[in-house]
């Protein structure tokens, strides 16, 4: 448990402001600060370190999105919140893997967070579908979609990159690609 004491744990308000400002250093402090707690939870409840990593990153993403949306109220400690999310996620995972022995060994107090985890998982499913659709899309459509919609590049840039002779050709291509992506996404 000594390692838990060695790492610096940032204050809750520092984390929230840091996330809102896209601060890399705060994200790192947050990540390093609470990982041991979750590793402890998972390895002592039938899991390994890779599973702990997955669960923990998911919880950090939940927290991150919640703060970004602006609806994180400091009604509970960040520590309790992260622990609760991870606990819930891990319980679900254990049940899915048929490794749930009927009880879980707890190391912290926790809150009921079923609804939030549910919401997160719905969103996660959508995003995974999007990822799958993009994979199926193939080149050059995938790069065009990524450049235009994800990396906010201008049509001009894309034109040059792919060697389209005029902007209209590029626009038509982009339109076709988007239609295909939508089809792939909604077909799943």
């Amino acid at each position: 448990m000594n390692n838990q004491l060695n790492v610096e744990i940032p204050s809750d308000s520092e984390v929230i402001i840091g996330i809102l400002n896209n601060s890399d250093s705060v994200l790192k402090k947050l990540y390093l600060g609470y990982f041991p707690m979750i590793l402890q939870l998972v390895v002592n409840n039938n899991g390994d370190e890779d599973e702990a990593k997955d669960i923990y990153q998911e919880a950090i993403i939940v927290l991150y999105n919640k703060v970004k949306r602006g609806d994180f109220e400091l009604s509970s400690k960040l520590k309790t919140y992260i622990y609760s999310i991870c606990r819930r996620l891990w319980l679900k995972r254990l049940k899915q893997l048929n490794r749930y022995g009927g009880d879980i060994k707890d190391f912290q107090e926790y809150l009921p967070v079923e609804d939030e985890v549910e919401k997160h998982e719905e969103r996660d499913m959508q995003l995974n579908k999007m990822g799958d659709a993009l994979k199926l899309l193939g080149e050059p459509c995938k790069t065009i979609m990524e450049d235009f919609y994800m990396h906010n590049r201008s049509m001009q840039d894309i034109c040059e990159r792919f060697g389209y002779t005029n902007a209209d050709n590029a626009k038509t291509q982009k339109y076709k690609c988007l239609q295909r992506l939508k089809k792939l996404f909604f077909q799943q």
Partner: protein
Amino acid sequence: MKDNQLLEMIERYLNGEMTVEESAQFDALRKKDATIDAKIAEHKEFTALLKQYNERLSLQSRLDEIHDEIDVHTLKDDLMAHPSWIVQLWRHHHSKISVAASVAIFAALIVLFFTGNLTNPDPMFKKLSKEVKLVKDQQTQLGQQQSTIIKNIRPTGPSISEKFRGTGFALTGNGYIVTNYHVISGADSVYVQNAAGESFHTKVVYTEPQYDVAILQINDPAFKNLGTVPYRFKKAKSDLGETVYTLGYPGDEIKFGPGSLTAATGFKGDTTEYELFIPVNPGNSGGPLLDDKGNVIGVITGKQTQTSGAAFAVKSNYLLKAIQSIPADSLNKSLILNTKNSLAKLSRTQQVEKLRTYVFMVKVYNQ
């Protein structure tokens, strides 16, 4: 309007790239045509999802980068609660173990069923219960006959039966015995009975109602000297938590009661008593309270009815005080207490074996 042109307009509209005029036109179009409005909404949602997907990917890679800096293995070893191998075995294989256990139970039941052991093969049992019933009937008959006989006899004088029982124990080998005052108060005659079942008549030599102590002396010609008592009477106070025990006659048999000393004061803070956690019944009153080494540290006096398990004992130094205040002329034999403890090194069972000849049932008779 072609679809791809519409898309371009939607994108320009959403990105705010239209001029005021164009924007107003498009708003009008949007109001007029519900399908365009739906398309705008759909496009907005879809591109937002694409953006979110991008954000998720970049966040994930940032997190992975941070994660790579952690020495997970050392951390894991530190944080792992190491359960015993049997617990681990159960955790990993509990379902298999459960299945194996149920199969084993099932198999055992089947074997029992086929070998006929599940049904009761013993006809002796029925016979026995018949015999018991026969005896019972005879008993009730006898009882009826007896009551008719008793009705026919007029009572002649008071029938004597023992009224109260307690326990007492030897102070000396020459017949001095201590018991509770409340055991013998109001008695016509007091007998003591030893472990062998022999009764001896006694006389009450001294009572100290304040400490609930009474000293008896056996004055029966059948009584033979017991020899030196094996225990010592402890003058100092005993400590809380000390393991103690008592011997006594709550029934016809001598009984051993193990317990511990729980408080330095007795009922309602009475400083002359100890509070004990020990199983005692009314007949235990007057019994010796001994510590681990076999020192007498008190005399059992009673128990509190409300609190289960709480019992009380007079401290031995009040017993000694009572003995000292006996007037010299009421003693016709010397009452000199033993100062040597010969029980200290013996095991509990050996101690009890030695003690039982010095513990008596006190039987009290009155009209």
